[in-house]
């Protein structure tokens, strides 16, 4: 996969006041990105079941339109930060799928050198600030990214994602207050898949809809249908424009759904098979496929070719991860301290 998807890149805009129409190539590119995520996650599921991925692994199947759609209205140098269901976010930012799968396998070639794992993908060059395991803990960080963007006068914005389970964390409320008070260029995105692990919104959150919380801070709020990538794009564009042109934050709630359990460790007994099957009928990739057919931009053959291509990429990433070396034991002492270029004498040694 190329480092940045050129077809999608040109749809990004920093100063336009309306979301530009997508070219046919760009639309196909969006479809391709969603399908790549789908196939990558399926490959991860397989690898986890085979014991090649350890610990926690939170899959994104069903939510693809959210990561792809939101990222598609950003500039490359805008900032993104999310929670632990982060494989898709890394991929849309342009992190190499090989580096992603290798990270899942814990190999030295992983995007975090095997130090992070599934929940902690990072890529500084792609402006992807992680991959965070403590629910809601990334939201103050994201607020700090936006603070720095404003402080430095960059004209860039930050997208900070969380699940519906995070919205009740104190850290989230504190961060939102700061963003509204200090007028920070940030969009908070709740990927509401209706379940925080086994707990439905109805059992976890007082105050419906979740966007109501923005009202407490006089913050703008927008809802979007996460199964419709065009709705995701249009709504996110509004929020991103507000951030970029007026340096004001927005709370977005994007309604979506995950087909698998909370993680690979979760059998998901709190949902019926019928419910999942019903929700699969609104699959975002299938819906977009229908739209592409209607607009005569694709055929079964052309989309099958894309499926073969991205499936091959997913398989190649698995092979790359398999063949990559483990980190040397010595590396356990690396990546702890930044070099002290400002204090020549002081070089802390993690060996003690």
């Amino acid at each position, binding site marked *: 996969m190329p480092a940045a998807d050129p077809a999608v890149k040109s749809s990004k805009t920093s100063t336009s006041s309306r979301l530009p129409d997508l070219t046919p190539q760009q639309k196909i590119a969006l479809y391709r990105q969603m399908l790549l995520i789908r196939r990558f996650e399926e490959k991860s599921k397989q690898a986890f079941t085979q014991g090649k991925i350890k610990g926690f692994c939170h899959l994104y199947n069903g939510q693809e339109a959210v990561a792809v759609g939101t990222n598609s209205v950003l500039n490359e140098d805008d*900032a993104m*930060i999310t929670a632990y269901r982060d494989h898709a976010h890394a991929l849309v930012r342009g992190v190499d799928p090989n580096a992603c799968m290798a990270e899942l396998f814990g190999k030295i070639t*992983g*995007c*975090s*050198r*095997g*130090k*992070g794992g599934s929940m*902690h993908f*990072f*890529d*500084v060059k792609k402006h992807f*600030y*992680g*991959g*965070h*395991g*403590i629910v809601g*803990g990334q*939201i*103050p*960080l*994201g*607020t*700090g*990214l*936006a*603070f*720095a*963007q404003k*402080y*430095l006068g960059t004209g860039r914005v930050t997208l900070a994602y969380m699940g519906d389970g995070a919205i009740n964390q*104190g*850290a989230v*409320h*504190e*961060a939102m*207050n*700061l963003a509204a*008070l200090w007028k920070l260029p940030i969009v908070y995105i709740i990927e509401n898949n209706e379940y925080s692990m086994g707990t439905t919104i109805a059992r976890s959150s007082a105050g419906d809809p979740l966007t109501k919380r923005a009202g407490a801070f006089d913050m703008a709020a927008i809802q979007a249908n996460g199964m419709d990538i065009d709705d995701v794009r249009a709504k996110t564009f509004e929020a991103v424009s507000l951030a970029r042109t007026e340096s004001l934050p927005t709370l977005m709630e994007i309604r979506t759904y995950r087909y698998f359990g909370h993680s690979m460790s979760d059998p998901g007994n709190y949902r019926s098979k019928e419910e999942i099957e019903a929700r699969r009928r609104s699959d975002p990739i299938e819906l977009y496929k229908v739209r592409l057919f209607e607009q005569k931009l694709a055929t079964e053959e052309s989309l099958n070719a894309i499926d073969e291509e991205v499936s091959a990429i997913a398989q190649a990433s698995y092979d790359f991860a398999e063949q990559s070396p483990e980190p040397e034991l010595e590396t356990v002492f*690396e*990546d*702890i*301290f*930044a*070099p*002290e*270029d*400002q*204090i020549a*004498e*002081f070089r*802390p*040694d*993690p060996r*003690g």
Partner: protein
Amino acid sequence: MPTLTYREALNQALSEEMERDERVFLMGEEVAEYDGAYKVSQGLLKKFGPKRVIDTPISETGFAGLGIGAAMYGLRPVVEFMTWSFSLVAYDQIVNNAAQVRYMSGGQFSVPIVFRGSSGGGLQVGATHSHTPENWYANVPALTVITPAFPDDAKGLLKSAIRSNNPVCFLENEKLYGYKDEVPEGEHLVEIGKARVRREGNDLTIVSNSGSTHRALNAAKQLEAEGISVEIIDLRTIKPLDFATIAASVTKTNRLLIVEENKPFAGWGAQVAYQVQRELFDDLDAPVHRLTSLDVPQPYNGRLEQAVLPNEERVIAAVKEVLT
């Protein structure tokens, strides 16, 4: 050499470093318009303006995390906790994010942040406001923990901490803000991770920090009158620990007393005691002794609180215990 109070020394450090580097900014409760709850940031808002000196709402986890994100993006924040007791609200952000983001990302990000604020007991402000949590932070890999006891060290170490590209917990001592002493003129940097012998002696080594260094020094004067010669090492930096300075002293005196305001279980002194007995076993003429706060929450009543602290009386008694 000019004489400054500990708070003036800190103020100078902040001012000089903010002037030197535009990416340095100060954020915390009451740091700007109020000039700081303890007046450490007096005059900084006037000098640097509201972009660089920022009053935060009371939301430690929010603004500590915001500071960490800003540091990841390339700024150099100084985040004040009005007292380190309040840092507990932000503990997740400090431990899981400030200290670990670099490692988890395989070295892609650095966090050049300084968390600073007052700490320590003895002011009858009760159990939730009197913590000396340097050990809770020293236990976290990748955090630097500094506790200056004198104005010159406060200035020099805060400057070094701000220049450090790694996350620093800088614990000031509330009772010492008014303490006056000489501070060198001009650019004064103190190396992080280096202890200082504040008093030379031959009979016993005391290793101490922050407010307890002063308790030890005062006790040493009384002990001198009784013919007991105590060498006192002020650690200045808790982590990374300057074991070499401790070793040089203990090989000379052969006796060690650690005086720390930490509560006893897993206080920083336990780490020092372990390392000394491990590496200098044959140099010891007596077991290593530790004098800490009593293992109780901090009471409000004045006499009770003084009894909890490693006060001078207890220091003297502990020294004599080691020597007999």
